[in-house]
């Protein structure tokens, strides 16, 4: 009996192909939006949290953890203070510290940040669960005035190996404070990573010192121009300060002890943070926008579900005769209820399943493009629990919504008796 009612419901839907298809489409699009937002959000979060990995600690001048994270990893904002070279050496030489990579920020080139660091950075900086930085062209910097650029820098400015570039003092657009007497040369271009590395120009720490010879007052000393590059090369170019230090530990279980020791250091006010938890905190700060997005897409799903209700209610008048016939040939009230609710369930289920597949299709098309051009790996976007839960909930709510029209149809069919109304 159940199977035959299912057959009736299915044939009845097929009979109203156009309106049923449109209704399913509305449900599919709304579910696709919801799942798309949900998955993109998840992928964005995991991408975000994968910006830096296998670095146990980041040490900078004492400010706030999120502030330190923003300028050291995301190259956003500025360090309010720097830490001394001595402090870097102390950290590097601590027991249990496997490696320490200093970075120095402050200059820029046409809107992109310039970061001074050591060659070790290219080995030690990892992202997305331990992925290494890779070169798409060229090599690491070797000479004092060599630069390695991120993929986005190369793409936006259309730079290639051998391109000469002039750094700007500070974060301006360039002009009055250019280091135009010390041009750099691009020797390496990094592959896309989906991290701020793509937007960074990497030079050696010594280069940062070198270009600031004659700038000790904060502006350019005219004397500086008279110094030739060869003269500068003879100087001791070890920096006096760095902006932050990335630290790797020999054993992960010493991380809290090391962090506390650095944070309570008496010689100099230092701040050590663990990147993972701080990234999580930062994401939480941005969480409100995310919640609004989810609320909007949930409302769109509600609109999709209402379209099922509309479709069933508008079909009731044309189906009044059909219900009378079914009653006359022996359909019980529960058959009428089941028939209507099965149709609602079918509309909800097929619509939601189509929506989930649509999202898969969209990700299948765009994931390789995002990955190739921006290094953004969309993870966890495959069919998963969230899809099943969404399809299940949409179907469930559709059945509940179908109850309304079903009761109307039933009441009418009882009132009509055996008389077929046209």
């Amino acid at each position: 009996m159940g199977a035959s009612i299912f057959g009736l419901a299915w044939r009845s839907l097929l009979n109203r192909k156009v309106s049923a298809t449109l209704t399913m489409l509305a449900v599919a699009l709304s579910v696709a939006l919801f799942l798309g937002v949900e998955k993109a959000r998840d992928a964005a979060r995991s991408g975000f949290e994968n910006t830096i990995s296998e670095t146990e600690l980041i040490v900078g001048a004492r400010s706030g953890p999120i502030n330190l994270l923003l300028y050291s990893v995301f190259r956003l904002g500025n360090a309010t203070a720097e830490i001394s070279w001595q402090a870097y050496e102390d950290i590097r030489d601590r027991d249990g510290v496997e490696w320490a990579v200093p970075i120095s920020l402050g200059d820029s080139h046409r809107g992109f940040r310039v970061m001074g660091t050591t060659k070790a950075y290219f080995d030690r900086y990892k992202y997305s669960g331990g992925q290494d930085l890779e070169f798409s062209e060229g090599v690491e910097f070797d000479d004092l005035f060599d630069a390695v650029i991120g993929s986005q820098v190369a793409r936006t400015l259309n730079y290639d190996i051998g391109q000469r570039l002039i750094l700007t003092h500070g974060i301006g657009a360039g002009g009055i404070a250019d280091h135009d007497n010390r041009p750099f040369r691009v020797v390496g271009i990094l592959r896309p990573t989906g991290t701020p590395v793509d937007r960074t120009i990497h030079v050696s720490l010594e280069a940062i010192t070198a270009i600031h010879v004659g700038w000790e007052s904060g502006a350019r000393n005219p004397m500086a121009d008279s110094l030739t590059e060869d003269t500068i090369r003879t100087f001791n170019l070890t920096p006096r300060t760095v902006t932050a230090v990335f630290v790797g530990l020999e054993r992960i279980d010493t991380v809290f002890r090391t962090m506390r020791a650095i944070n309570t250091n008496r010689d100099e006010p230092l701040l050590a943070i663990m990147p993972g938890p701080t990234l999580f905190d930062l994401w939480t700060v941005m969480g409100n926008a995310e919640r609004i997005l989810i609320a909007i897409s949930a409302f769109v799903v509600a609109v999709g579900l209402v379209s099922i209700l509309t479709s069933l209610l508008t079909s009731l008048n044309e189906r009044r005769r059909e219900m009378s016939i079914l009653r006359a040939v022996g359909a019980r009230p529960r058959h009428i209820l089941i028939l209507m609710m099965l149709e609602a369930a079918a509309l909800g289920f097929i619509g939601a399943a189509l929506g989930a597949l649509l999202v898969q299709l969209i990700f299948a098309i765009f994931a390789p493009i995002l990955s190739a051009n921006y290094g953004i790996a969309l993870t966890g976007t495959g069919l998963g629990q969230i899809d099943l839960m969404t399809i299940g909930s949409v179907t469930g709510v559709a059945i509940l919504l179908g109850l309304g029209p079903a009761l109307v149809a039933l009441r009418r069919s009882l009132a009509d008796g055996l008389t077929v109304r046209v």
Partner: protein
Amino acid sequence: MTDSAPRVHIEKLEFAWPKSPRLLEIEEFDLRPGERLFLRGPSGSGKSTLLGLIAGVLTPQTGKISVCGYDMSKLNGTKRDQIRADRLGVIFQMFNLVPYLTVAQNVALPCRFSKRRAQQVAQTGSAATEVERLLSRLGLDDPSLIHRPVTALSVGQQQRVAAARALIGGPEIVIADEPTSALDADSRDRFISLLTEEASRSGASLLFVSHDSALSSHFDRAIDLNDLNRAHHNKAAA
């Protein structure tokens, strides 16, 4: 129930729609086994209400109505629905067929809701052959017609499909409510003779309702609802 007991038996039945004057008041009415009964009544005379009572979709305020020995006024809705599914075939004036089913699916429809009729059909062979047999009995022997959508049929063909549906699975009672009013004279006579013939062959009692007393010659017995219904006498007098 014995073979000679009436298929439908009504005694001192009274019925009124809510907030309306009494529509039906029937002292006694019988539909006997195998009988072909013509019930004449103009529209508004309470014909459809009487058929609703017999089919068990309505219940009388007082009195007794039994169908195949079951006292309908004492049964709940589910049970009455079951009796209708098992023992009644119904043909309407028009628009008898479910538009999204084929001819064959429409004919076999009662078997979806009645195990009894499905078993009855299974005894004679497969459902498909029984559908085909009934349709050809009723003059629809074009095999291509069986799987056509019903919307492609003429009104006369639709009514014959409805008759086949009413007869499938051997119900005890076939009720026809003005089934020929949309047909021209030729198809009307042909339809009635096919219907009465097939009803007799299957042993079903046929209750045929129409306003057109000219049709009564096709039947064993004819009753005027106005004679049967005393409520109507009273109303007519008023």
